Every structure is written in C-alpha cells, then in structure tokens.
C-alpha cells in the first residue's frame, strides 16, 4: 500500500496501529505534490512547514493516546475556505494577498479533530465555472488525461484526491461544483443538504445555494468527513438546528439489508435532455442494473420543471453573486489599484483589474437582472420557478428514497473546448443544479469509464437531511461495481 492510495479510513488505522507516523505520511504526500503537481496544477498554496508541524503535533497526540477522529490525516481545502494565517485567494487576483484572520468553521472542526491541512486547492475564480479553467493562477488538468479538464469549480480538490496528493479534500458546491469534478476525476463527491454544514468562513458566491462537502476516495470517507463538518453553528444563521446522525450507520444498514426496500426514481425529463453522450448513457444503464441487483426498485418519476432549472439558476446565482462580490472594493482587504482619481474610479479600476472574465460576466448578469425595471421579470420570476422546482422534488420523494441520474451529460471535455461559449458551459450543469435550487443532498460515485479512459460518475439525490440514504446506496453501489479507481501519474 502506497501513501498516495490511502483513504482516510486506512490512514487512520495505520496511524493508530503505529504502522506509519503522520510525519511520514505528510512528508511523502508533500514530496509527491512537489514532484508531480507541476503537471496537474491542483494546488494554489502549499505551506510545507505548517503541514509538517501539524503532523508532528498529531503524532504526539497519538503517542499520548489523545486520539481524535482525523488525527494525522492530510486533507486539502478548496481555496475559498478561510484558513487563519494561510493565504486564501478564491483563485482571484483580487484576493491574491488575502490572509484570513480566522478559520472557517469547517476548518476549525478539521483542526480540532487532528487533521493536517496539506494545502489550498485551485478552483474556478470565486467558484464560478465548471472546468477550473477560470482560475487566475493556473488551469488544473485532469489526472486521468492531462489534455482534459478536471471539472469544476472544485477541480483542484477533485484532482488532488484523484492524484493521491491527499487522503481527502473539501470542496464547495453551488450548482454541482463538488459532484461534477468528482465525476470527471473518478472520486466520490458529496453535497450535503443546505444548512447541514456551516458556511461561516466560506467566501460566499450564491448564499442560498452554497454548501461545503467532502471529496474522497471512497464513500466511507465521505461519511467520516461529513460526521466531522456537520452541525448547527451560531456563526451561520442558515445552518440548520437538526440532529446530526452518525453517517457511518449507513454502512451497517447496507451490511444488514443490502438495498432491499429502497426505491430509486429516474426522472423521465432527464432521459430526454439533449446531448447526453452515449457513453454516459451506457454507464448510467449499467448503474441502474447494479442497483436493481442490490434490491432497489426502480421507477419512473417526473420533475416537470426540469426544462427551466438552468434558466432560473443562471438568474439566481449571478444575482446573489453580484451582491456578494460587491464587498471586494479595494478598501478593507485584497488588491487595490493605486492610481485613481476618486473613490468611484478606485472601485472600478480595482474590480476590473481584480476580477477575471467569468466573474465580471456574472456580476453584469446579476446587476442587470436586479436593476430597476427588470427585477420582477428576472429575479422575481426565477424565485417563483424555484418554488415550483422545490415542489417537484417534494412530490418525487413521496414515492422514492432517492433519485438516480447522470452527473454531467458527457465525460470531461478538452481544455479550451468550451471556454468561449459560456451558455454551452452553463447547459452542462443540467443534472446538478436542481439539488442546489431545492437544497437537497446529492452524491457522485464513480460508475465507469469512457472509451478514452475518462471516469464517469453516477448521481444520487435524496430528500433534505437524508444523506444516510445516499451513503447507503452509494456504498452498496461502490462495493458491488468494484472499480479500481486509481490513476497512474
């Protein structure tokens, strides 16, 4: 067993059995990053000394029998999660020199549980994109084939997990940004229910859509991380006051009763979406067959407003973005353009030099849709359509435990292929956006490969706060399909 292949579960066991030390593991992974990340571009910032210090401390804790859930396990973080003392850029020039003065709640929780923060991963600027090509720093490459995108916006986190640079990572998902890169990189990605995980210390993009979640090598690890990061937080008024179950119970449920008694719905509208790649279709059919074999009853369901999801999302998300990103004005933090006539001129020059093209585009769309005279036609209307989309899902979950679908209509595309056609790029989000609009959880699990050897995932979505069903079905599926999801560097 090589260090780069270690899941959280395996690493924990080896650390606690004293077969390896966290210092060895962390140093080996840092070494791997140094040797190979120039080919992948998964990381924006790696603070070697800090990671090694955390590893030493974890080793001391383990030696003193102070055992916490993630003691000594190296985890990577998407670079929009605030880390005290470690630069947090959101892959934007406007935050190039931003050093947070506090840890985000998920970061505090990881640290309290002994995790080693191995580095901050690349992403689409402010999480706006589906390919990680919109980073101001570098384009992350898909570790399975470096001519292809890793997906996005958490492309750096997914690539880092796939390339064996860390045991697991955290990403964020506003419209598929955890699930889609996980699918493209052959790893597991879980977007929790809105409100399950505190957003305090996450740099906001679409506040009613954003959610932090795990990107891992297997489904068990997703449950382990979710156990740690979930829970109500006084610092986030939208975090839910609901009980957090032990998510690993999902695996006992599977061992005891397989997936018998579960019902999966397949939305008929999803099957008639234009441009589904035949290879994605093949993988999806096979996934359906596997789940049936495990006792899942498959039935057709209807989500009547599917055709309007992309349109409503690409109003709501840019509106929230235009409001959230107004704070980057060159006054309190980040970059400021120096030679300015007056304060308006300073705002304009700062924002224009600091934000990349996709961020500017979404700010403009949002500003337009929220401007006087257009608000009702765009934001108002989209918010009403959102209600209908939420109702579609509430109705669907009356008759099924989870919804089965592809993650993306096609496997990863070539770098540069879609960069000049933003609308084409938005349309590829069709299967993932709904979970954010409805606030429900979704998981992407590796399900097969394209003829070019690129991974293809399958998505399951469940009712609010029913991550257990996703983890149970995802685990059963993963165990049965038995894919060897390792990529050679």
């Amino acid at each position, binding site marked *: 067993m090589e260090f780069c292949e270690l899941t959280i579960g395996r690493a924990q066991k080896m650390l606690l059995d004293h077969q390896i030390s966290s210092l060895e593991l962390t140093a080996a992974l840092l070494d791997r990053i140094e040797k190979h990340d120039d080919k992948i571009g998964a990381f924006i910032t790696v603070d070697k000394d800090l990671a090694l210090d955390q590893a030493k401390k974890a080793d001391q804790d383990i030696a003193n029998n102070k055992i916490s859930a993630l003691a000594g396990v190296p985890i990577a973080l998407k670079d929009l999660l605030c880390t005290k003392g470690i630069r947090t850029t959101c892959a934007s020039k406007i935050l190039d020199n931003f050093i947070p003065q506090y840890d985000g709640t998920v970061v505090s929780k990881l640290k309290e549980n002994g995790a080693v923060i191995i580095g901050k991963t690349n992403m689409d600027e402010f999480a706006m994109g589906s390919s990680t090509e919109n980073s101001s720093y570098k384009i992350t490459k898909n570790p399975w084939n470096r001519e292809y995108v890793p997906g996005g916006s958490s492309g750096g986190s997914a690539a880092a997990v796939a390339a064996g640079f860390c045991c697991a990572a955290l990403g964020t998902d506003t419209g598929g940004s955890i699930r889609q890169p996980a699918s493209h990189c052959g790893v597991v990605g879980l977007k929790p229910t809105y409100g399950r995980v505190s957003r305090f210390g996450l740099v906001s993009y679409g506040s009613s859509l954003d959610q932090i979640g795990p990107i891992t090598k297997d489904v068990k690890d997703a449950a382990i991380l979710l156990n740690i990061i979930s829970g109500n937080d006084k610092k986030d008024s939208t975090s839910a006051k609901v009980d957090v179950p032990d998510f690993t119970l999902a695996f006992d449920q599977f061992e005891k009763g397989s997936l018998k008694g579960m019902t999966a719905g397949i939305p008929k509208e999803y099957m008639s979406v234009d441009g589904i790649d035949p290879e994605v279709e093949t993988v999806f059919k096979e996934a359906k067959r596997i789940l049936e074999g495990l006792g899942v009853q498959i039935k057709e369901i209807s989500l009547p407003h599917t055709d309007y999801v992309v349109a409503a999302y690409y109003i709501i998300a840019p509106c929230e973005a235009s409001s959230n990103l107004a704070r980057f004005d060159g006054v309190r933090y980040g970059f400021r353009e120096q030679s300015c006539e*007056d304060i308006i001129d300073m705002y304009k020059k700062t924002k224009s030099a600091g934000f990349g093209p996709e961020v*500017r*585009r979404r700010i403009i769309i949002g500003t*337009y849709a929220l401007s006087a005279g257009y608000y009702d036609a765009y934001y*108002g209307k989209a918010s009403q359509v959102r209600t209908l989309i939420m109702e579609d899902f509430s109705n669907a979950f009356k008759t099924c435990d989870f919804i089965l679908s592809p993650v993306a209509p096609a496997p990863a595309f070539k770098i540069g292929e879609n960069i000049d056609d933003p609308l084409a790029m938005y349309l590829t989000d069709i299967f993932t956006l709904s979970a954010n609009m409805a606030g429900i959880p979704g998981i992407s699990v590796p399900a097969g490969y394209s003829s070019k050897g690129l991974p293809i995932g399958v998505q399951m979505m469940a009712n609010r706060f029913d991550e257990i069903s996703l983890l149970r079905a995802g685990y059963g599926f993963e165990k049965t399909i038995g894919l060897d999801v390792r990529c050679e560097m």
Partner: protein
Amino acid sequence: MKISMDEVGKIAHLARLEIDQVQTEKMAEQLSDILGYIDKLKDVDVAGVKPSSGIAFMNNVLREDKLKVSPGPLVTLANAPQRDEDFFIVPRVVK
C-alpha cells in the same frame, strides 16, 4: 433579447466595472445569448406561486445581547490595502 453595448456600459457602471470597447462588444453578444435563453422562463405559469429564496429556515435566529471582546483594529485592519494606524485610507470622498 438583444442587449445593446450602451446597456452593457450602463450596467457595468452600476456594478462599478470598467470594461473596454472590445470587451463591451463581446459581453453584449454573450449577454444577449444568455438572456435569450433565460427568456424561456416566460413560458412558466407562476400565477399565485410564492417566491422562494432557498430552504433556510424561516425563523429568526437571535443571539444573546451580550458584550464580547472585539478582535480589535490590528486584526480587523490586517489586510487593509492602505491604512493609517486604526483607519482605512481611501481616496478623497468629499470635494
């Protein structure tokens, strides 16, 4: 839905963005495409449907009205692009 270059210019000003002629032209084209696509929302009958802003729980979240130690200016101003001790410096606002 056709968005003119003029409109893009106005919106950019509202958003406090400065974009040049070439970018404005490209943006007008892309925005027309995107908003053209979004126009399909017109087909949805939403009579009597309440708008949703997400699933956040619709009750107020209050905290105790208690004094707490503030992080202080050293922390608050640590990332300021330009500062004078406890103050942010900005270009002259009042003329």
